[in-house]
């Protein structure tokens, strides 16, 4: 045993459940809000390539309120345990939520209505929350010399976070000042660095830890993680740089490198699945698998868009595949599994009998969520391709039904978890 490892101590850097669960529950609620806003603005989705209104607001409720919110909760909980290094004071994690949550809501209000005070105030709070998150994660990563497959993706996520926040602020200020030379190019770069950079790198890095843990299989070799991190960095620089410079073919080349990255990543995950001990994969894995199918499709759409092929169709289709098909499928799939898992873990963390995972999971609600989510993506893809408002509305409503079902699962799970904890504290579990 090495002294360095001993100095880490046996005490895990496990943050209290109030940290991750406030992020997860908020993400679950905003998931419903996001789909509801999209359903309300579904008539404007056809041919959507940007501009204020309900589609942009709904998109940001999903990207910031669900994807980033869940990513933060997961990172706060998982990263210090995985790296065995302190992440930061608990109050700072809570402060992140306090800044970020109202920021997202106010910013989304501004994006829907064009209210300048909401745009500026919301963006400021949102970026403040993201910046604090980035600092906390960065401090943790700076102490880590091992786990390169995970930490390099996390570093890329932190770097992307800085870029996306900067670009986002520029875009918000540009709404009433109009100083950007090519707003569409900045918006595309912002979307790329947010979707593939910040959230994509978090998803890819954490999946190297979470997927083997959930399916009980050997982890992904560090060499593979290093390779995908390097390829991702190249793809992001080409993609974002090409967009900012107005060089479509360079962005397309970036997406092509991204496809190569995805191939390496998925090959590694296929090996993980092949060697797994848990033969029956739970409901959550349907969403994860669907996300893995859509991820390369989103890059193909990105190539078509970068090359200028039917942008009125490929632009919204790319956004759908990236945000809803890849990221939202993956994140809600992981949430389906990680929330009851963490609840069970925390209930047994002090040596008591933990609540069973199977007791926490309300399976029918998860199945409904999966089916509705998949149906919604399909309908929205058809609706965007045909530019059909009724089909788009039907897709968004189906997504809303799925989100409500997922929220009901979260409600039941939290109620069972808290009831168990209360009973345990009274000595009658």
């Amino acid at each position, binding site marked *: *045993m*090495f*002294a*360095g*490892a*001993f*100095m*880490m*101590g*046996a*005490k*895990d850097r*496990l943050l209290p459940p109030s940290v991750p669960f406030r992020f997860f529950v908020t993400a679950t609620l905003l998931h419903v809000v996001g789909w509801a806003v999209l359903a309300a603005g579904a008539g404007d989705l056809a041919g959507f390539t940007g501009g204020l209104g309900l589609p942009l607001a709904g998109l940001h409720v999903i990207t910031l309120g669900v994807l980033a919110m869940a990513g933060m909760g997961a990172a706060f909980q998982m990263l210090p*345990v*995985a790296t*065995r290094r302190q992440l930061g004071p608990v109050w700072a994690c809570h402060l992140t939520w306090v800044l970020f949550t109202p920021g997202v809501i106010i910013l989304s209000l501004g994006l829907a209505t064009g209210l300048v005070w909401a745009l500026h105030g919301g963006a400021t709070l949102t970026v403040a929350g993201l910046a604090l998150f980035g600092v906390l994660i960065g401090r943790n990563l700076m102490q880590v*010399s*091992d786990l*390169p497959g995970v930490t390099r993706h996390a570093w890329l996520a932190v770097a992307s976070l800085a870029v996306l926040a900067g670009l986002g602020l520029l875009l918000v200020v540009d709404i009433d000042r109009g100083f950007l030379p090519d707003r569409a190019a900045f918006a595309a770069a912002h979307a790329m660095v947010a979707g593939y950079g910040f959230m994509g790198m978090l998803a890819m890095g954490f999946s190297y*830890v979470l997927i*083997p*843990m959930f399916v*009980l*299989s*050997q*982890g992904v070799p560090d*060499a593979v993680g290093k390779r995908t991190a390097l390829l991702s960095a190249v793809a992001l620089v080409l993609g974002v740089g090409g967009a900012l410079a107005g060089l479509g073919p360079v962005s397309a080349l970036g997406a092509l490198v991204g496809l190569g990255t995805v191939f390496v990543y998925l090959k590694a995950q296929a090996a993980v699945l092949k060697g797994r*001990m848990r033969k029956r994969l739970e409901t959550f894995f349907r969403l994860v698998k669907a996300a893995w199918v859509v991820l390369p499709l989103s890059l193909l759409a990105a190539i078509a868009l970068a090359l200028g092929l039917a942008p009125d169709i490929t632009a919204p289709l790319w956004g759908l595949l990236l945000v809803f098909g890849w990221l939202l499928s993956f994140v809600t799939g992981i949430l389906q599994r990680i929330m009851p*898992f963490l609840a*069970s*873990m925390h209930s*047994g*963390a002090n*040596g008591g*009998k*933990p*609540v*069973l*995972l*199977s007791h926490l999971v309300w399976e029918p609600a998860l199945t409904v969520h999966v089916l509705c989510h998949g149906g919604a993506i399909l309908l929205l893809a058809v609706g965007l391709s045909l530019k059909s408002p009724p089909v788009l509305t039907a897709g968004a409503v189906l997504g809303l039904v799925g989100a409500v079902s997922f929220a009901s699962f979260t409600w039941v799970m939290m109620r069972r978890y808290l009831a168990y904890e209360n009973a345990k504290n009274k000595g009658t579990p």
Partner: protein
Amino acid sequence: MAEVMESSGREAGGPPGWLAQALDAPILDVRPSLADGEDPLGLILDAAEGVEFGGFLVIDAPFNPSPLRRVLAARGFSSYGRRLTSAHWRVFFHMDGGQDWERDAEIEMLPEGALTWSEEDGLHVDVRKLTPPLPMLAILRLIDGHPELAALVVHHERLPQFLIPELAERGWRVVRSTEDFADVRLWLEKAG
């Protein structure tokens, strides 16, 4: 100079035949890193990755790095250790498929690289220095693969929080734990 020899793969009564070649290999001294409170495992594993079949790796450490030897055994290295002083060990590693390790062992090595052996208080498993999630896999493999097993002693390097839900689903739990230098020990039991 006091010299204690410990080998996984020596010829009966003496050092292994490959030692003569290993003596010429450069030495990676991890004592300064450890003195600075740094974990040199990544450095060592990087060095080990560069060793081709038939090659050697030599580590100087302030103690016998048993968990490291087991980790590298799982990667195909036989090892031979010498205690040069009370606070200085030199361990020679030979990339030969690690076959000697198994031949020499009083213990059984699981596919994850964990070691199991029996003591008076039951079956023990050492999962130290394994990369997550391998410790969890090794423990669950034992539990799932031995329905007759009612208790298990785990040698870990930290409290494995992520294991708790999986144990609970199988009707197992941690009944006791102790924390010593380099050994967080957990007593697991199947609920009656």
